[in-house]
């Protein structure tokens, strides 16, 4: 069910020096990393909070260690404890996954100081790219296009003047932020001061860092990102781009590789810019450079994520490369897996993020349990998840439950296969967004590749769930009725001869 499209074409003659790797993460990404470790013959160590003692990732790994914390999230953010666990268990490397501590420069440094290999960039690079403002400055300095922007100073009026000079609309963003938090769109000068103040206080509250900046807001922007690998010596390659424009609450829900309708020169330029940035930073290991692409073809550097991304499987599917393996190889000092010229792309891949939420109620998070999981199987399909039947879905973690990744020889086939797979997929016991995702994929604008980050809002009405056809509704009612003990008894508990006489009155 979860096989990458093809195994890595490059055979590494060198032996990987890591005997045991601890995954500082959980859920589907932990399972994903463990799968590659297993294939490479490297022992895997999972960490888990007490509440997740029986979680899938903990059971998949060769060894599991309990980490303590008031909440599971708090435990996974306790870098010191994690490093202690790694040392105690004899792990010689730590894979941070995504989220949690994966972009925490302090953690990366502490890991290195402890003599453990960090499967990722070095602390300095993480710090550089982690700070949105310093990342922007670095990009600009190396000839990568950045959106005109303005930093707020004590002089709010000067800030407002400079911002107005860029022109509206503007996007206010938190320097230390991410995941769509602390962001807002400002369309006129009169809103600007207030918006800046609110954003700063939000940023302070969520990230402990109140710095915000304003930059040009591109209308109907497309979110295009490039997967890169660097060897830390200034060499870098790209693994083509991904498009992640379909978002809700500034979070991606559908990603694809390659981007649709992208002119070859534009793609060239964007990928080249990404490589230039990464090479200049002497970036080591895997990362993603994110851009905003306007309808006029202008693209701007958005930010860089110094880790493996959620949507990495779509890149794996069109390149045939195991990115986790590449990460380990680079961390082991074996350099890049291949030269740029050897990097080939084949077909099209789409990933749908399956989340426990209700699209009809503004994507409010939902809870429940995995009462039944029925997953379609095909060699072009991956269902990345950390789910167990009966598992409780709570608000302890992010609502993303799984990723459905589908490959096809071209975009249309990939779309059709994705829709079919979503239809066949059954995850019962908690409200999820799979029907909504299927409606997005089936929408003419999506098919046409007419994407931008406001897609979900723009097509809100068209994507709203319609009433089921009367036939389907009746079938569902009958199926549901037959599943209730009370109806079963009513229908089949009537004795004879009354059941055969039926309704009769004298």
């Amino acid at each position, binding site marked *: 069910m979860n096989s990458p499209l093809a195994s890595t074409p490059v055979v590494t003659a060198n032996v990987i020096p890591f005997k045991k790797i601890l995954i500082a993460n959980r859920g589907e990404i932990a399972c994903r990393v463990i799968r590659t470790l297993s294939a490479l013959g490297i022992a895997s160590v999972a960490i888990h909070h007490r509440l997740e003692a029986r979680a899938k990732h903990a059971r998949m790994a060769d060894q599991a260690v309990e980490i303590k914390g008031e909440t599971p999230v708090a435990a996974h953010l306790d870098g010191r404890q994690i490093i202690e666990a790694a040392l105690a268990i004899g792990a010689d490397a730590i894979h941070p996954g995504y989220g949690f501590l994966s972009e925490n420069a302090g953690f990366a440094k502490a890991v290195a100081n402890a003599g453990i290999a960090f499967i990722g960039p070095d602390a300095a690079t993480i710090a550089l790219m982690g700070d949105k403002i310093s990342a922007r400055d670095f990009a600009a300095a190396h000839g990568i296009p950045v959106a005109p922007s303005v930093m707020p100073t004590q002089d709010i009026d000067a800030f407002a003047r400079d911002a107005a000079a860029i022109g509206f609309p503007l996007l206010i963003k938190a320097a230390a932020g991410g995941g769509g938090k602390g962001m807002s769109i400002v369309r006129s000068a009169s809103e600007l001061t207030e918006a800046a103040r609110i954003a700063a206080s939000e940023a302070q509250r969520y990230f402990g860092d109140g710095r915000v900046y304003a930059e040009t807001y591109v209308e109907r922007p497309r979110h295009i990102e490039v997967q890169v690998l660097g060897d830390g010596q200034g060499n870098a390659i790209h693994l083509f781009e991904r498009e992640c424009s379909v978002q809700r609450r500034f979070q991606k829900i559908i990603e694809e590789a390659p981007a649709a309708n992208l002119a070859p020169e534009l793609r060239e330029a964007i990928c080249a810019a990404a490589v230039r940035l990464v090479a200049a930073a002497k970036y080591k290991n895997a990362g993603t450079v994110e851009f905003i692409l306007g309808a006029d073809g202008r693209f701007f550097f958005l930010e860089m994520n110094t880790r493996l991304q959620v949507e990495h499987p779509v890149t794996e599917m069109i390149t045939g490369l195991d990115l986790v393996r590449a990460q380990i190889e680079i961390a082991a000092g074996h350099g890049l897996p291949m030269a740029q010229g050897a990097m080939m792309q084949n077909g099209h891949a789409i990933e749908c993020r399956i989340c426990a939420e209700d699209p009809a109620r503004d994507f409010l998070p939902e809870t429940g349990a995995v009462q039944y999981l029925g997953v379609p199987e095909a060699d072009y399909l991956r269902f990345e998840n950390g789910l167990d039947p009966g598992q409780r879905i709570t608000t302890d973690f992010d609502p993303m439950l799984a990723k459905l990744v589908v490959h096809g020889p071209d975009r249309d086939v990939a779309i059709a296969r994705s829709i079919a797979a979503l239809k066949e997929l059954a995850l019962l016991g908690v409200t999820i967004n799979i029907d909504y995702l299927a409606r997005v994929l089936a929408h003419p604008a999506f098919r046409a590749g007419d994407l931008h980050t406001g897609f979900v809002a723009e097509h809100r009405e068209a994507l709203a769930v319609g009433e089921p056809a009367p036939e389907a509704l009746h079938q569902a009612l009958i199926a549901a009725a037959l599943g209730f003990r009370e109806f079963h*008894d*009513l229908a089949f*508990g*009537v*004795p*004879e*001869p*009354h*059941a*055969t*006489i*039926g*309704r*009769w*009155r*004298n």
Partner: protein
Amino acid sequence: MINSSGAEFRRNEAHNRLLVAAFRDKQQAARHTRPARDLERLAKQNKMRPRERIEKLLDSGTPFLELSSLAANMAYNGDSPSASSIVGIGIVSGREVLVRADDPTVKGGAWYPLTAKKIVRALDIAMENRLPVVHLCDSAGGFLQLQSEVFPDKYMAGRIFRNQSILSKMGVKQLALVFGHCTAGGAYIPGLSDYSVIVRGTGAVFLGGPPLVRAATGEDVTVEELGGADMHTSVSGTCDYPAANEDEAIHIGREIVSQWDRAKKWDIQRDAPEEPAYDPQDIYGILPDDIKKSFDMREIIARIVDGSRFHEYQPNYGTTLICGYANIWGFKVGILANNGVLFNDSSLKGAHFIELCNQNNTPLVFLQNITGYMIGQEYERRGITKDGAKMIMAQSCSHVPKFSVMCNGSFGAGNYGMCGRAFDGRMLFTWPNHQIGVMGGEQAANTLAEVKLNQMKRNGGAVDQAEIDRLWEDTRKAYQEQLSAYYSTSELWDDGMIDPVDTRNALGIAISASLNAPLGEPGYGVFRF
């Protein structure tokens, strides 16, 4: 076997269809016609009509055999349709139950004398057949103007509560749904039921209502305070479950019934049922339009039993009594049916066949059309009285369930041998064309006229023919009224008038209900041989 396009058939059919239409009209009126004022009052109290309550109580798609729908149709000036009470056998949560409902749309549900009789009969049926009972209570109490006929005697209202107690002792469950007032004696219905549900705001249980309490002790108290849902379900414990409305009460009632054991039924032979091969509607053309005309009961049997298959016993002997085995809704039964007067041989045959059925644990079905036992010197010398007695002895002492259908006529002692009302049949139904009496109207008129004539002659006066004619006419008229099936069903001498084509379903449901009780001990008294 019959010529369904013959003139006689068509004449009979027209006559009987008219009779049945008249029956349906009367039934419709008894069930549904009510003064608008009473219906409005009910609606204002947010109450459902009793038949609505019953329909919601019963499992959908199941039959309901209503008993005695025309009780009291010739009494009290028609003031108490169905005797202000609805009784029937139906399915609730998959269980066979007897449903009994007060009718608050008739004088607030007050109990007339025949109401009490109907309820007592309903509970007798429950006891004899071990049928759980669901009471739908909503009554103003006894109909005070006729209290002497409602209250004091052995089989009047008190018998209801005695029966309830015995039912409970037998382990047969009772549920009371209190939709309205249960006052005085009526309070004992939920009080003596194993489970009770009471609707908040409209249901109330008290031995004396607020007016009576005020008059007796001066205490001033509201209905809710005195006997409402919350008080009884949280303070006194008289009722078990409060309900916010009638729908909820019925829902709770159904849930309660679903907790009851499914009855273990007596095991008698049962095959797959089969519709009769002959059309039951033919019965209309078979029954003659004149009670003095005869017809072959086999034709009727063929339109009631499964596959129209009837295994006749002793076909060449005692031919005025048809005996044989058949299936009704799969249940094997022994049928006795009259094709004329009962003679020595037919009486003996009947007694013997009844014994065979008891030996085999086969329920008995009596299809009555009997004017009596043969009289006359020859028959007396041959012992017709003894032979009739043997048949009555066998029938009375039977331990298998017995069912009777009054098909056309039931006169004199023939009623006895053929399991009339007094003989503890589980259920007894009447057809609209049926007549019942000690003797026929004309016969009675002739008899009384002759007695009068003889009396006049003895007194030595002139014979006043006009007076004799008047007497004859009056007698015939009085008998006509009292012989009719409507009179008999009004007085609850039967468990309901039914359309002849409904007989098969009625018997099937009745037989099924009867198997909830164990068969009695076999044994007979002394047969005078």
